[in-house]
């Protein structure tokens, strides 16, 4: 029976529900909608991936199921991060299929490429992988903290790595957000960046929570040509209006 995709969707939903402290079958049905059939859940229970208590009406993941779902969710949210940061905004549709088709080595590579992000663009936590624990920040990382730029370099913001909603909002208010191009003006005594024509002074910890695409080396290095900035050319105030800019 080839219903791998449906089974995995259920496992992912169960993970979501666990994050929110939900465990009722009704919620599962509600979220899954028409895709849900009792047979899939029964299949998962038989395979030892899920628990289903009919009397209490509760469902949950077994520890084996949890390991499986963790990988799926991690792949899904990393894919969202990737499409959101690289391609623009609406990432959900592409990312939906992603976790069903990739292998876990590839997921770790993407995670490393993105500098081990901790949240998907919707603010949900990305489960840690082996690569995050080893915390590889070798040359293969393409997304780097702002603090690693040279003075005078432009770079595009990939995401802001922080769990603090306030910092995220404050930076968003100043238009420091995924897709924005910022130029590093100064690193000492404090960081000063230019974003959308405004100069902003930042502390060390704030600056290192801003992750940017490493500007490519070569003749145009320092002119803000990230690998994705193909036809933007020269800019003073950064990208043109809108995040769909590229």
């Amino acid at each position, binding site marked *: 029976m080839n219903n791998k995709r449906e089974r995995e969707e259920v496992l992912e939903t169960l993970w979501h529900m666990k994050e*929110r402290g*939900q465990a009722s079958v009704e919620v599962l049905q*509600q*979220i899954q909608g028409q895709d849900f059939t009792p047979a899939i859940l029964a299949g998962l229970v038989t395979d030892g991936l899920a628990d289903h208590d009919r009397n209490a009406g509760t469902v949950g993941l077994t520890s084996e199921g949890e390991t499986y779902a963790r990988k799926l969710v991690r792949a899904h949210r990393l894919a969202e991060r990737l499409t959101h940061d690289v391609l623009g*905004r609406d990432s*959900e549709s592409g990312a939906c299929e992603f976790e069903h088709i990739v292998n876990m080595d590839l997921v770790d590579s993407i995670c490393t490429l993105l500098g081990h992000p901790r949240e*998907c*663009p*919707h*603010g*949900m936590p990305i489960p840690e992988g082996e690569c995050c624990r080893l915390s590889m920040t070798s040359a293969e990382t393409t997304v780097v903290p702002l603090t690693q730029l040279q003075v005078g370099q432009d770079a595009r913001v990939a995401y802001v790595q922080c769990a*603090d*909603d*306030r*910092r995220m*909002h*404050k*930076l*968003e*208010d*100043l*238009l420091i*957000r995924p897709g924005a191009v910022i130029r590093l*003006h*100064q690193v*000492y*005594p*404090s960081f*000063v960046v230019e974003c*959308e*024509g*405004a*100069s*902003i*002074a*930042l*502390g060390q*910890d*704030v600056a290192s929570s801003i992750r940017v695409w490493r500007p490519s080396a070569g003749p145009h290095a320092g002119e803000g040509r990230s690998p994705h900035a193909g036809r933007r050319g*020269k*800019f*003073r*105030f950064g990208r*043109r*209006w*809108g*995040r769909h800019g590229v």
Partner: protein
Amino acid sequence: MSAAKRIALVGLPNTGKTHVFNVLTGGYRIVANYPHTTVETERGRCRIGDADYEVFDTPGIHSLYIHSEEEIAIRDLLFCEKPDIIVQCIDATHIRQSLALTAELLGLKAPLIVCLNAFDEARRNGIRIDVQALARFLDMPVVPIKGVDDRPAQALHHAIQTAGAGTKQVEYDQQITGAIHRVARAFPDTVPYREKAALLLLLRDRSFAGSADAMLDDAARERVRVEVKASRDTYPGNIARAISACESNWADTACEAAVTRRHAGRARFSEVFARLCRHPVFGFPILAFFVTLMYFAVVHVAGALEGLLSSMIVDPVVNALAAALPDGLLEDALVGHYGLLTLGVFNAFCTVLPILTVFFLIFGLLEDIGYIPNLVVLTKRVFEKAGLTGRSIMPLVLGFGCKTMATLTTRGLPSRKEKFIAIYLIAFAIPCSAQLGIDMAILGRVGFKAFLIAYGTLVLVEIAAGVILDKLIPDEARSDFIEQLPPIRMPNLKALLNKTYHRLYWFLKEAVPIFVIAAVALFGMEAVGLLDILKVALEPVVVAWLGLPLDIVDVLILTIARHEAAAGLLLRMVDSGGLTYIQSIVAVVITTMFVPCFANIVAICKELGVRAGIGMTLAINVSSFVLAGILSKILLATIGG
């Protein structure tokens, strides 16, 4: 009285709200090219056509979703006062940042007007804003204001008279819209802006959740809580992020509709200058240049003015009166050592006024250029040593303008430790602008080196105090350091003169009565012998410890009344050779640290409570005596007396 419609001026920091307030009300409040010039909501009135309006000028906010306490006050103002018209001020050079707030304000569904400030500057920077297109897109009146001397009162009045609730709203996805409606329905009718309230709760605004709870009874609170939780839980992803994303998308679209940017050629002079001001190497010489410029202008230009006034007015009048009046009480009371005219009126008009005129002109120039906030970058590391991080640095830098205002800007600091240290340091060794001007004038009589010694000491004392406080007070979570720096702007002469005029006018209005009262009080104390008793009592401290002549007691008493009042007397003592080189330095250092001005003490009590305020004032006074004494001994030992 209640018939007057209410207009609230809101906007991001440094977007010219106060300028619009001045245009509307015809009054004058200080405007400057830096954030937090306005720290408390100000109310004014105006009459347009036949209707009366009440106008609120509010401090800047970035968002209705709140980051700090001062922003809560503004949102509460919107929710409690429910203004009839909201005027949003936008800095045209940074229009996109402001449009995010516009998106949030639309949710209030109140009549909204947009003022585009710095319109000419934006044009020069290559930002072209199609006002008509913007007005069409926003569906609200848009009034461009070219610059600081543009006062388009008519256009504003017309916009206010015709403003109506627009039809434009940010479009959220269906699930968000549904959630907003469900939560809004759970509120009773009495809650203002129910949809906005619902949105803020969905955004997980903790501070708003508190005030929302206060507005609701138990049943409604529970209904709302359930709806909010249900909406958050069933939304795929984080609903708060999705809402912000919709709003920010909307602002992007608004910009696309009305704004075009040309590539602005080479880096403009103002940008280069801004960068140099903050530069770790070039920044300090520039700072030194401005301080030196100020020093020499105050010493020489103000000194010359003062001499002129003295020879043309003061001396003839004093001599004439002394000759005309019979020797005795009346002559002493008018033109004697503590005379009403000599120490009161002439001191204010002929000694202090010229100093402040020159000083305020230059200080106002630096304010309008936008130089001062750039100092946060240079001084950050120093202040960090003193336990100040994040948001507490800016208030300290602003302390050089007015200590009272700076104390009030600490309100937004989340950590009590940072707040305490910042307030203490602002009150302690930082001279306010008037004090700085006067210190320059006094030390100018003795030499530039004396100025450097005195101010070097103050800087050291300030850092030491910060380091000690940092060690004493247990650590707390530190706030983020994220400060938008104002753009460097070409100053406008007319606006600068206007500002200086008003500052001087306020000084005269507030200070002259105090000068006169202080002179009368001193004269009275001397007449009844109280002054002598006090001097005898203070002799060990003043003469033995501080190494100052006993007459300095008069100066200290005047300092309590008003710092500027002491300046005249101190200047006279220096001129008449009553103070040695070292004594002059010690006297300046102690009068700068001794007793924060009354308004500052009130502000401290307001922010930290009366007990802490009084305790802090005492601590400052005691330590100023201790430190000035130590300085006196060190100077005597090193450069000799």
